[in-house]
């Protein structure tokens, strides 16, 4: 086991990609993607500047990038995460700071940016249900019903997708604009 343990030490900087099939312990700085099939621990002194992928991720340090756990993501006290968090189980302890989209549940092995946007549009994340395919298939229909939500997604772009989905309270002006545009076409 000790032979398999990989450690990026405190004063170590890695610029580039780290891949492999074993556990990884980050106490230093990794500016690059981490993708291992074992567990990843980002220590309190650890700093990762890109996405992290692994079986079970435990974060006590800072990550600027998406976290994708095959089994679980555990953000402990002192963790600072700017990025999306996805895993079957996500734990965020008191004292952990997160800015990004969080999704728990099965079936999000390799999420794309598009699927993330759909999920944000369709359902509040508390339900953790996969977005109904209808939402993906008929975005145009959704514009009529949900007016403001649809237009804010069009204009807000990524900022809107990163926040939890807004309540469906149509902004009337925008809704009118949207309909007017429809008619013009």
């Amino acid at each position, binding site marked *: 086991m000790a032979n398999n343990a990989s450690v990026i030490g405190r004063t170590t900087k890695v610029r580039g990609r780290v891949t*492999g099939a074993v556990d990884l312990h980050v106490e230093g700085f990794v500016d690059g993607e981490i993708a291992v099939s074992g567990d990843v621990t980002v220590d309190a002194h650890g700093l990762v500047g890109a996405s992290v992928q692994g079986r079970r991720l435990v974060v006590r340090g800072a990550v600027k990038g998406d976290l994708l756990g095959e089994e679980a993501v555990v953000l402990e006290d002192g963790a600072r995460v700017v990025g999306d968090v996805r895993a079957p189980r996500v734990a965020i302890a008191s004292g952990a700071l997160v800015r990004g989209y969080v999704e728990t549940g099965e079936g999000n092995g390799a999420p794309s940016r598009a699927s993330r946007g759909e999920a944000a549009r369709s359902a509040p994340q508390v339900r953790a249900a996969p977005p109904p395919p209808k939402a993906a298939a008929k975005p145009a229909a959704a514009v009529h019903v949900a007016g403001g939500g649809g237009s804010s997604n069009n204009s807000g772009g990524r900022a809107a997708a990163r926040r939890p989905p807004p309540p469906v309270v149509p902004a009337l002006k925008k809704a009118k604009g949207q309909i007017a545009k429809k008619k013009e076409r």
Partner: protein
Amino acid sequence: MASTVIGAGITVEGEITTDEDVVVSGTVRGKLSAKEAVTIEHGATVEADVTGGSLVVAGSLTGNVVANERVDLQQGARVIGNVKAARVTIADGAQFKGNVDMDV
């Protein structure tokens, strides 16, 4: 006690810089700069220029090496590249192709 370990099964593609000891049992491609001891263990693959305080190689290393103190190529080591250090030893059974510069 090494503080940074690139374990067997881990691949790092890019640049590693550190002030502490490094042990490589896995794969490193790119560049490896350390101030203290660097150990490339048997079974490890390093395709990188390596700088360090001292270097012990038992695995495979392709790249140029500069060490402040010494470089030891152990039995089973396979090194292709130029080596520059105040002291260089090559053990019987080590494969080596490159220039040696002990003129520090």
